[in-house]
């Protein structure tokens, strides 16, 4: 296993980068970070839509969330693969395809995490903000969302782990990322699948496990802060940071 790492560590890390497209673990992380960065604003919009005072907006947001939750991510990838070039009017590379699919898919999941964060806030917060004379957008932007995002921080980090794991599906449409790099190495060696796929799995584990543990620690910190704030003595339940495959 070590000799494979010594031979191919650069391919695992950055793919064929200086002479070709960026790939490997760095591309995987880059895709995940871009996906999260672009999905967050969309998720906030959907979350606000889910709790909007206007029923048509609520229905539309719920429709988006449930449709995405009912579709396999692989299907979303194919929609992005075939649909995005037509929407944008020009061919796109695998990197953009994968980021597009992640934004579409994860917006719905992140929105639910943010909504849970909003709903965990006492109603008094919104009423107090309105009583101070803030309008809807000021209430949301200055009072509700900052607190809700803090509450949702552990769930958001857990969701980021899911994003990292989901980038591996880029392999199916031959995007240059970590899983694809491992498959390339496997094709070159042919006789050492156990070692190659162990390297792949262990590296993913190291990255994701670190983040998962951080999310758990954050959850305890957030829970302590929130219980300190809730004066009525009722310990608020932990926000679910359920991981998804």
């Amino acid at each position: 296993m070590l000799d494979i790492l010594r031979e191919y560590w650069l391919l695992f890390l950055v793919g064929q980068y200086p002479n070709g497209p960026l790939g490997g673990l760095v591309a995987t992380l880059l895709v995940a970070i871009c996906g999260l960065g672009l999905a967050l604003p969309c998720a906030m919009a959907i979350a606000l839509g889910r709790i909007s005072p206007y029923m048509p907006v609520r229905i539309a947001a719920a429709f988006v969330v449930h449709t995405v939750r009912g579709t396999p991510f692989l299907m979303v990838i194919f929609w992005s693969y075939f649909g995005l070039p037509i929407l944008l009017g020009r061919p796109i590379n695998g990197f953009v395809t994968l980021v597009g699919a992640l934004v579409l898919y994860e917006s719905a999941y992140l929105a639910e995490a943010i909504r849970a964060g909003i709903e965990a806030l006492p109603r008094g917060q919104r009423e107090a903000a309105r009583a101070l004379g803030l309008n809807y957008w000021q209430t949301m932007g200055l009072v509700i969302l900052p607190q809700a995002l803090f509450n949702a921080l552990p769930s958001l980090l857990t969701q980021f782990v899911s994003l990292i794991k989901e980038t591996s599906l880029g392999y199916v449409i031959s995007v240059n990322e970590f899983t694809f790099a491992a498959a390339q190495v496997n094709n070159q060696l042919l006789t050492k699948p156990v070692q190659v796929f162990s390297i792949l799995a262990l590296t993913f584990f190291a990255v994701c496990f670190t983040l998962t543990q951080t999310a758990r620690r954050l959850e305890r910190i957030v829970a302590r802060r929130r219980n300190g704030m809730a004066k009525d003595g009722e310990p608020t339940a932990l926000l679910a940071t359920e991981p998804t495959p």
Partner: protein
Amino acid sequence: MGYTLDFGAILSGEHLRWLISGLRLTLELTLSSWVLALVLGVILVLLRSSGIKPAEWFVTAYVEVHQNVPLLVQVLFWYFAVPELLPEAGRIWLNERNSEFLLVMLALSFCFAAYMSEALRSGMRAIPQTQHEAGRALGFGYLRTMQYVVIPQAARLAIPPLINYSLLLFKNTSLAMAIGVHELTTQTRQIENDTFRTFEAFTVSTVLYLMISFVIMAGGALLERRIKREGR
């Protein structure tokens, strides 16, 4: 754009047959993995609460590994690496059958067993010890205490995540495409290659996936409501 939608090419003749066979395989994969995952999940929970330290460590490690490695990587590992680890006879046995289906089913089951065991455990853990004691004080034996006091309350907490994981299990059967199992996603791609009707093919299969997902979601919501009522 001059592009007219034509679902006829997909929803008739040979292509319809491909679609139906793909759907059937997806459902078979979902059901068989679901049953095996639940059985393994229960075994994992029992091991974890057994009080034997090495068994508890094993389950903790098992759960963390399966939750922190992408499912596709697990599927690829089962497909490419696990047969290499088997003795000669096992490999021949696998090659003679349609090993792809079996291997992806095992990958899904072993992965979702980890998730399901966590859902079951969080349900069990939320029931305070005093509930056990109260059951015993009422004169119930261990099994009756479990049956009438602990499990009804634990189930109420465990069933929502279990339904969520069942839905995810169903959706993730599409990963079988990566190793060439002819389930719904693979068949969709084949139809698309055969007809060049990309949008029609993917619309039809997305709608099929959505319909089954909605059935799972609605069934789950019904079940949750019923359990809540009974628990009162």
